[in-house]
Structure formats: C-alpha cells, structure tokens
C-alpha cells in the first residue's frame, strides 16, 4: 500500500501524515505543482494553511495542478483522505459536500476530542466502531451544509464522524466532524488522526484510519 501526501505551500501537517502512513505502508510526498500522483494507492490532503488560507481556506489550493489528478483519482474510486485544511480543500473542490466556516468562538482551538464513528463503511473507517480520541486544532472548522443536504447525507450514510456531546467546540451542524462522498472512498474530517498514532502523545486512535485504508 503506497500513500501519497500532497504538499502545498503552507501545508504543515504533511510530514506527520507521511510518518503516520509509513507505520502501515509506504508513503511519499506529492508536490502541488506536479499533476502526477506517482502511482500511489491512496492520497492524503493534509492539514495546514495552503496558499496562506488567502480568500477562503482551501479556495486556491483546489486549483493546484495536483488537485486535477486528485479529483480524477477520487472520481474513479481512489482512496482520498482530507484532514483539516485538506477537508476544506476537498469541500472547495466539490469532492465532498458542504463547507467549513469559522468556529463559533472565532478562536483557534487546540484540544483532544472524542468522535463517534457513525458510519464505518468507508474504507478509511472500516471495522472501527469504538469512539476515537483524536486532537483538533483549527479556527475554521464549523461544518455547514443546507438542511436538505444534511438530511440526504444522513440518509446515505455519509455522516461518518460526529463529535460526542460536549466535544463540538466549533459549532458544526449536527455535531459533524467528518463526511464522506456518496461512494465512501473520499473522507474529510477536521480532527487530525495523523497526530494520534502513538501513545507517547496520548492516543493512537488515529492510526486506525491508516490501518483501515491499508487493510
């Protein structure tokens, strides 16, 4: 299993994602300006502040040359994981429904959250049923979509991850922490599984997503 981790100008969690992926398989970086996925089996769009978060988070990154290939790969069923800024990029690209808005508090928040796996049919979550303890760190993480879209996502089993009661600090609609596309091969989430891969830092629950994808 070979993972590719996209690096945009302003990415900052690309190396953690690379190291997390290497715990379960091979991994290499994919440069934003190269329209080439180098034959990887799964793509991770990592956290950070791509293109300085100018205009809107993810708005400019979605037009990077590498994203043309990521979109093509995703639409053909390739596994894609968007974490934090990566989630924002995938929403801007239309690969995932909805959008991320500023936290209700308007503050940057860094804290451990507990997530309920609502729907575990995505390859990124297959076999995971227990709640996951994973850190969050963002200013723009309030998931929003119009109510009819949320109803549809819920009916389709696309509401993959929810914050447990008391953990939805950013004000996300219906406590949503992560969603998938209709096929389930694309998952986006605000919490950072790549920062929770070793008990040394408090939790290794995030590693389970990488293991699920590699299984």
């Amino acid at each position: 299993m070979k993972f590719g981790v996209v690096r945009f100008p302003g990415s900052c969690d690309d190396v953690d994602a690379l190291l997390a992926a290497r715990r379960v398989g091979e991994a290499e970086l994919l440069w934003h300006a190269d329209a080439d996925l180098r034959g990887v089996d799964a793509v991770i769009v990592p956290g950070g502040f791509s293109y300085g978060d100018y205009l809107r988070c993810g708005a400019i990154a979605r037009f990077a040359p590498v994203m043309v290939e990521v979109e093509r790969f995703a639409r053909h069923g390739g596994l894609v994981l968007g974490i934090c800024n990566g989630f924002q990029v995938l929403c801007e690209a239309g690969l995932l429904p909805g959008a991320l808005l500023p936290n209700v508090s308007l503050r940057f928040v860094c804290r451990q959250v507990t997530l309920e796996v609502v729907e575990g049919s995505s390859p990124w979550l297959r076999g995971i049923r227990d709640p996951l303890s994973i850190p969050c760190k963002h200013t723009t993480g309030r998931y929003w979509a119009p109510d009819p879209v949320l109803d549809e996502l819920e009916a389709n089993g696309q509401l993959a991850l929810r914050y447990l009661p008391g953990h939805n600090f950013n004000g996300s609609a219906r406590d949503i922490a992560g969603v998938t596309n209709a096929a389930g091969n694309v998952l986006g989430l605000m919490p950072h599984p790549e920062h929770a891969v070793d008990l040394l830092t408090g939790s290794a629950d995030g590693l389970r997503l990488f293991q699920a994808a590699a299984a």
Partner: protein
Amino acid sequence: MRARVLIRPKTGILDPQGQAVERALPALGFEGVANVHVGRLVELDVDDPARLPEMCERLLANPLIEDYEIQADLLPAGAAAGAS
C-alpha cells in the same frame, strides 16, 4: 475596467464575526445597531466584465455559503482602494 465584488455570508448562516462587531459597538456607546454582517471586498481591473460572474462562482465566492454582488464600471482602471 475597475470592478468591485462584495462578498457576504448568506442570510441564515450564523455569522459570529458580525455578532462580535454588533456586540462591540454598543460597548463603545454606539446604540441602535442591528443585523451586522462582515464580508469581503475584492477590487480588480478586468478586460471583460462579462466574465465576472463566472470568476465569482468559481473562485472569488463560495456560492454555497456566500452571496456576491458585482459593481463594475465604478472607477477608472488602475485606481486602487486607498490610493490618493
């Protein structure tokens, strides 16, 4: 042609930035302020203003969460905001 695009959060979507400003104004003694919303302003010189709506739809705004308003032909090309 100089154009200006005003981008606002869509009505009905919680706008905590607008709320924060709305709460701050009375604290400074400015009473009687309501419905404050904070958006973005993009100013640009364009050869073909007919393409502005597409620019807004594809990049300048996110139509899911934002409304945009195009004001074209306001200023001579090259006039920058704040330039004297």
